[in-house]
């Protein structure tokens, strides 16, 4: 890896910007109002207070009360639960509310922190919660509110890591000789409102996204510089950490395999033709076996023609309009716009804090424009990209692997009769590095003067979007 001698001043400034954003959102978002935040808090509380890792792959027969008595008291007496997704409620706003809760909390019996049962978060592997546990424990003497706040702060290093690795990734792909493109890419990530919102929530999403962004960078280094011991260890470590953090980290194994295979092919290619053929056949067989296994899993063990048609129809209608001969798709009301725009840039809190439809429409149009511009950029830079085809393959593979696994899980859920489409915008945050690089790529091909001017406009637009997110959050909870 590159030896870091000094942090470039623009990156330092972006990190300070990111820090201010994260602190502001952490304070403005009332306690436990993030998506599933209470469940993630309960997981960490069980680890610290009960001294056990409550991970289990399926729902228990007897789940018990989900939250500890302490958490339940905070939710009910603190009037936090009535606030969830309810625009008719406001965040508790008086020291009187604190006193009423404090009196109830003081009456709790010993052990009331450790008597929580099962919550849905406990199906997640434990790495993020083990990371958050020392933060929680550091505030062990304080109230449940303070511990919840400290758990949010634990996300800030992960957020800063995302900004750093997006910067580095852009440098590797677009050239370190053009630092303004690195600033554009990293700035776009730092200003992404959903990413900052999730940083302010005790939840593994940002931790996982940091692992992903780091893994994408290491993957690119692997194919550019070869499989040194250090890079291989980092790649395997990040993939393992992703898998131990969340189911959505599984696709990191694919990224690691692709990056390592391409790196070996480029730098340690077998000398004999026979060995090369064998390597190609073995790789093809492994890919085929993996694809077949995934297909079998997606079909829930029943690969009948009707099910294959149903899955294909679901996938088509997620991205494209229904064709005349197609039956109505599973949750055909939930498509690419919902995931890639509406739920990627917002909403906040318990999903009730949303940007206006007009703004989301504008973002949808701009996203399409930028996708086209990025394609133009890719074509204009085709010589550079062709020389780096393996890096492109690693990043493309990461996108395809991540989205494939998400669609497979979504299809399995929907085909089993669940109304939950599973796939939502914040699940794209692990690919935030690609989002930043994509925005930079869309600008990179312009003449330098025009590119810099466009970059300044784009970043200010994103800064305004960031501030708009904060504006609607404050309006929702305090006005």
């Amino acid at each position, binding site marked *: 890896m590159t030896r870091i001698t000094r942090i470039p001043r623009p990156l330092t400034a972006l990190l300070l910007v990111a820090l201010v954003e994260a602190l502001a959102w952490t304070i403005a978002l009332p306690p436990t109002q993030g998506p599933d935040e209470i469940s993630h808090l309960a997981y960490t509380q069980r680890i610290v207070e009960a001294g056990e890792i409550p991970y289990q792959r399926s729902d228990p027969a007897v789940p018990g009360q989900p939250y500890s008595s302490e958490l339940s008291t905070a939710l009910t007496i603190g009037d936090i639960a009535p606030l969830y997704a309810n625009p008719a409620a406001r965040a508790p706003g008086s020291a*009187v509310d604190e006193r009423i809760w404090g009196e109830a909390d003081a009456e709790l019996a010993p052990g009331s922190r450790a008597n929580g049962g099962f919550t849905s978060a406990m199906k997640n592997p434990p790495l993020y919660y083990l990371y958050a546990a020392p933060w929680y424990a550091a505030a062990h003497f304080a*109230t449940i509110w303070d511990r919840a706040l400290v758990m949010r702060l634990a996300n800030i290093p992960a957020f800063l890591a995302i900004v750093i690795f997006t910067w580095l990734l852009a440098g590797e792909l677009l050239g370190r000789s053009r630092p303004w493109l690195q600033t554009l890419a990293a700035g776009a990530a730092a200003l992404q409102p959903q990413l900052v919102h999730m940083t302010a929530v005790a939840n593994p999403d940002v931790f996982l996204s940091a692992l992903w962004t780091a893994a994408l960078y290491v993957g690119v280094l692997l194919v550019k510089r070869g499989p040194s011991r250090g890079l291989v260890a980092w790649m395997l470590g990040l993939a393992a950490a992703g898998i131990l953090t969340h189911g959505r980290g599984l696709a990191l194994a694919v990224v690691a395999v692709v990056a390592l295979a391409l790196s070996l092919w480029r730098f340690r290619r077998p000398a004999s033709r026979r060995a090369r053929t064998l390597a190609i056949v073995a790789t093809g067989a492994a890919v085929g076996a993996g694809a077949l296994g995934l297909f079998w899993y997606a079909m829930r063990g029943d690969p009948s023609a009707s099910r294959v048609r149903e899955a294909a129809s679901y996938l088509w209608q997620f991205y494209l309009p229904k064709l005349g001969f197609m039956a109505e798709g599973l949750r055909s009301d939930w498509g690419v716009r919902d995931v890639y725009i509406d739920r990627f840039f917002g909403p906040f809190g318990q999903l009730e804090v949303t940007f206006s439809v007009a703004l989301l429409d504008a973002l949808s149009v701009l996203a399409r424009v930028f996708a086209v511009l990025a394609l133009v950029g890719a074509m204009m830079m085709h010589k550079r990209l062709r020389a780096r085809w393996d890096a492109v393959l690693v990043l493309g593979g990461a996108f395809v692997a991540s989205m494939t696994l998400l669609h497979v899980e979504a299809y399995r859920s929907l085909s089993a009769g669940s109304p939950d489409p599973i796939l939502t915008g914040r699940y794209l945050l692990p690919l935030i590095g690609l989002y930043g690089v994509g925005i930079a790529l869309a600008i990179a091909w312009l003449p330098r003067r025009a590119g810099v001017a466009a*970059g300044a406009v784009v970043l200010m637009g994103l800064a305004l979007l960031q501030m708009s997110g904060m504006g609607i959050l404050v309006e929702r909870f305090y006005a």
Partner: protein
Amino acid sequence: MRSVSTWAVGLVALAAGVILFAVPFVTREREILDSAAQPAPLTSTALIELRRGGQACLDQVTITTHSAQARLRVGTFGRPGQRLRLRLRGSGYEVMRDVPGDYIDNAIVAVDLPPPRRDAEVVACVRNGGRRRIALYASQDRTKSHSTTRIDGAVTGPNFDLAFYTARSQTLMQRLPEALRRMGIFRPGFLGPWLFWPLAVLFVLGVPLGTLWAFAASARDDEAQPPAP
């Protein structure tokens, strides 16, 4: 592009966005929901029926120094409205208001109140002063607050909906000091407006300007580099 031009382009874009979008948003007057002792439910509406002379009381209600109007929704079973009496009584605060029966079925009834000098915990009671029964809209789903409702002294399941509004509409800018104060609730004691004000200023000015500084600096660094071979 020279750094000065980068700043100029960025600042013009930022100023345009602020003037077109941010200023109208923060200066638009809006009704301010100060607090909701019992917010309206999300999934199912319950009713608390009060016969002639009946009284429902909601305990552990927080009323703040900004609360100047109480609102509750009242059903009259298709009949004319009935007279009501709203009474709030607690530590250092007591007020009683009679509400004429000139409201329609299922209307939100708004009752002006003098804001307390200090935030107070009160019991809020509604008495049916008319001759016919009425129903207070209530909540019994997960939005039910920690308060307890008693009808003529007997505990009942749902809580009647009760919200407090400020005396007049405010802009978000006008509400900001109170919003920042409230962000300190359920936070460590040492956190409060002394920190939140500088953080708010840093957020509003530092985020766009810090980003623009970073971008302009990197564009300048780029300019300083020798051209690629």
